[in-house]
């Protein structure tokens, strides 16, 4: 080791080739799936964020390409289904995807081609983590990155159920769940994510969340000057904010962008399932079991008496004889 990797401040740097100590690891985990009482880490990293400025995005898929290369995934060579989305959906081999929406803007009469990079939003309140039953399979670091620890993943798919953005995908190859890691391995080395590094127009940028919000506000001012009165940032409070945030020209209508949820929340069904249901259910089961045990210990068993046997024999004899 020649030193500790720095905390990342931007995506635009060349990766080191010398061995450095990672600046992100187990000791930075603030939450882990199915491990409710995790001790607080002794340090807190600066929150990071990836900002996706939809208004700068040219839909070139460099992010998809860089993502596949960095993560060494092998997206399938599919077919053309009449649209530009390829691969057709997020998959365990494709952690990010450009989604294209053709929109005739009724207010301006202009046609708009809205292109959004889809992928994990790295929620502050991750639905996937809440849903995951495998201890330590999903972790959240103090810098905001939500990462899947594949060794711990059991492939149940509950993360898919928990995610308000429909992001995780189970690999048919190894039955483990995959999604964008925000390039936690790069961030650990002081680098930004591969997608942000590659993005030709820097529609994707990476830095501290505070810096990204500031950058977003600059962009929003620029967009407003170009007539996008509803330009704004997408950092949905329903999931506690996210560490992947968007600048949208039409922030009043997120769902225009290939169904980006207008107000994402961890679903009530998921909360019920992982909240009250879990407690009540277990309590009920526990009480039932405990009640049975107690009753068994202290109650009087229902025993067959000798008279019962006699009566039975009499009855049988009676019946048999009666027939005879």
């Amino acid at each position: 080791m020649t030193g500790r990797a720095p905390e990342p401040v931007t995506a635009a740097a060349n990766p080191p080739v010398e061995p450095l100590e990672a600046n992100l690891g187990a000791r930075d985990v603030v939450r882990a799936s199915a491990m409710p009482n995790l001790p607080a880490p002794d340090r807190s990293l600066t929150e990071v964020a990836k900002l996706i400025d939809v208004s700068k995005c040219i839909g070139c898929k460099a992010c998809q390409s860089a993502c596949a290369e960095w993560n060494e995934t092998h997206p399938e060579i599919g077919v053309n289904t009449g649209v530009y989305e390829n691969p057709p959906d997020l998959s365990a081999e494709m952690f990010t995807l450009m989604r294209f929406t053709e929109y005739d803007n009724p207010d301006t009469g202009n046609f708009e081609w809205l292109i959004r990079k889809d992928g994990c939003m790295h929620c502050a309140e991750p639905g996937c983590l809440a849903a995951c039953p495998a201890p330590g399979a999903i972790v959240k670091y103090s810098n905001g990155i939500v990462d899947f620890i594949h060794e711990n993943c059991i492939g149940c798919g509950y993360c898919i159920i928990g995610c308000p953005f429909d992001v995780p995908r189970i690999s048919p190859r190894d039955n483990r769940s995959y999604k964008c890691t925000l390039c936690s391995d790069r961030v650990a080395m002081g680098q930004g994510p591969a997608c942000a590094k590659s993005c030709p127009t820097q529609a994707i940028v990476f830095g501290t969340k505070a810096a990204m919000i500031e950058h977003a506000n600059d962009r929003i001012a620029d967009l407003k000057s170009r007539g996008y009165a509803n330009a704004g940032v997408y950092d949905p409070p329903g999931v506690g904010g996210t560490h992947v945030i968007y600048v949208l020209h039409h922030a009043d209508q997120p769902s225009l962008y290939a169904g980006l949820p207008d107000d994402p929340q961890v679903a009530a069904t998921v909360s019920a399932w992982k909240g009250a249901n879990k407690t009540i259910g277990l309590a009920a089961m526990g009480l039932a079991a405990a009640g049975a045990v107690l009753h068994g210990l202290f109650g009087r068993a229902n025993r067959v008496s000798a008279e019962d046997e006699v009566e039975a024999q009499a009855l049988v004899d009676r019946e048999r004889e009666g027939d005879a």
Partner: protein
Amino acid sequence: MTNAWTDIKNTDLAIVMGGNAAEAHPCGFKWVTEAKANRGAKLIVVDPRFTRTAAVADYYAPIRPGSDIAFLLGVIRWCIANDKVQWEYVRNYTNATFLVREDYGWADGLFTGYDEEARRYDMTSWEYQIGEDGFARVDPAMTDPRCVWNLLKAHVEVYTPDFVETVCGTPKDRFLKICEMIGTCAAPDRVMTSLYALGWAQHSKGAQNIRGMAMLQLILGNVGLRGGGINALRGHSNIQGLTDIGLMSNLIPGYMNLPRDSEPDFATYMASRAFRPLRPGQTSYWQNYRKFFVSFQKAMWGGAATAENDWAFDYLPKLDIPSYDILKMFDMMAKGEVNLYFCQGFNPLMSFPNRAKLTEGLSKLKLLVVMDPLQTETAHFWENHGAFNDVDPAAIQTEVLELPTTCFAEDEGALVNSGRWLQWHWPAATPPGAARGDVWIMSSIFRRVRALYEAEGGAFPDPILKLSWDYADASEPTPEELAKEMNGRALTDLADPADATQILLAAGRQLQTFGQLRDDGSTMCGCWIFSGSWTEDGNMMARRDNSDPGDAGMFLNWSFAWPMNRRILYNRASADLAGKPWDPARKLIEWDGAKWTGYDVPDIGVTAKPGEVMPFIMTNEGVGKLFSRKGMVDGPFPTHMEPFESPVENLLNPALRGNPAARVFPEDLAQMATGDEFPYVGTSYRLTEHFHTWTKHNLVNAALQPEFFVEISEQLAAEKGIRGGQQVRVWSKRGEVWAKAVVTKRIKPMICAGKTVHVVGIPLHWGFTGVARKGWGPNSLTPFVGDANIQTPEFKAFLVNIEPVEGGPLA
């Protein structure tokens, strides 16, 4: 590009027309995004399709493929009519004031001098009035009706907004809005940049499309300025370099030309090339042609090129026609006139029009040699791949050699980018299998041929036997040796012409600049414009200092740019007549009273006084040319011409078809369709996910865009009963393809001359080799005709038909 990629950040308005920068050049397009984000620049896109560039544009307008000249001349007309002209620039830095001969004229879509039989113009009348002093006559007041400005005004009069709407299908309000946006850049402190590519070049009048924009940029005073210029976004990584080094039929490195049959000796050859200035006191740089040429001949044949043999003038082949370009060669091939053909990193079967004709030509060769890192369709043209390549191998007698070469990761050397930067790169990986570099392969072939001539004699062996081969390892010259040869060196001590006792450069030393070249055989130089790239100070192309004084975007210490490390051509024009920058905030160079200083290498003699030597030193006039005199074979001004295959007639003259001066072979003309037979306009293009037919060999890019498709409007889809994702057949008079249909709002029908015009968009990335799904390219459909000046095939506008298909070859 007159400017550099990094300079685009200095613009106020970028117009992308005749290209699709965001998709074809995403990382260069970044600088448009920077200009938008940091200086509030606007972006206009004019394109038949709403492209991914349009997705981030401030304003978009559709245009019918092949009607760009009408649009551009319409903008010029609007600018003149609305006084959106940078008058001082136009008056001083263009040939607006030059008087043109009385017999020049234009009528019915044709200029004077047209010979219909020969499909050619006699350009005699396209000339200035030459005064008794031998210089062109000018009228600084621009009142003379024969001055270029007044001729231009008259020439563009027909291109009214209504005419533009009728021809181009661009709604008038959209056209006028764009005119207004462009018009703002006539102010000295506002600059527009034009970014274009093959969307303008691949027409039978491609060069005239580009001239239209160049003229507009001169009128707005935007050439030579930071954030301005006329920027061809070139395709391949070293297409600029190969053109610079002259790997074309008619070129000699550094934009010199092969002699013609009409130039039987060196003296005749030189007589028509050392252009003398057309105005007093001007510097026509081509006056140095002889120095460049002699030094080139010395680089080629060393000691065998002597004053006595006219520097081995006869070792060069002469041309009897303007060029044996690839279209001409494939035409000859199809006629059985070619026996051997070499394809070095080139896949013509998927790159040139009328694939059926290409296959026919390749099938008539005796031997085809393909050197490529990939298994190209050309090398495999004889293989049957069902409908994807329906040939009978047994019937093809061509021998084929497929030779594996290295690729970028395995080789070393320089590439010239679109902004003329020569950047050196180093190898990182061991070549796979038996793959070897092009240098070793070409050396091996050449040395064997030379050995055969040495042993057997044969046809005119001198240029082969005497070719300079001064390399440490004759079997594989190093990149360094070759680069130094191109830079050039002194062959004898070079004495100072002013003081013979002073040696400026000792024998054997690398040249510092082409200014040191001599025409007496004492210097050698493979490519004069590259002089300064590998000097005694070392490899200038490998420089990596990315500092940028003044945040000007010039990066003078990063690599080397030709000529002389200059980053913006014509940068003298960034300052007014007195030498002060038009816009102080955009200073590039300025006259400090004694010399030119600034952020860029001045494109003028450093001590050439302002007002005396004019900015455009490569022209005979010293100024930019609104009227191109004899530079273009199809007219001194652009004029509206329809594509060879067009759904509408030429409104200026219905009798005209295509570019009247374009070369077209009779068999090919017979295969041109009319709108009655083939009602829809086909246009070809690249997609951002792919690079030509290379990346379909690549797993990731094949996944990002796996399968051949065509794009049509919702309206055409409804008319034809085509669903998105369904298989369709598209056919032209020359061939047919099957593809998936992408039905989109991004293409909308246009109304041109009262007709509804539907566009069928056909991307070009698929074939029958590689890892992506098998498919076709648009070249199965396109007509075999090129631009009149530069022979770029007319890939961007042709006629097709389309129908839905069940159970076709893709099913």
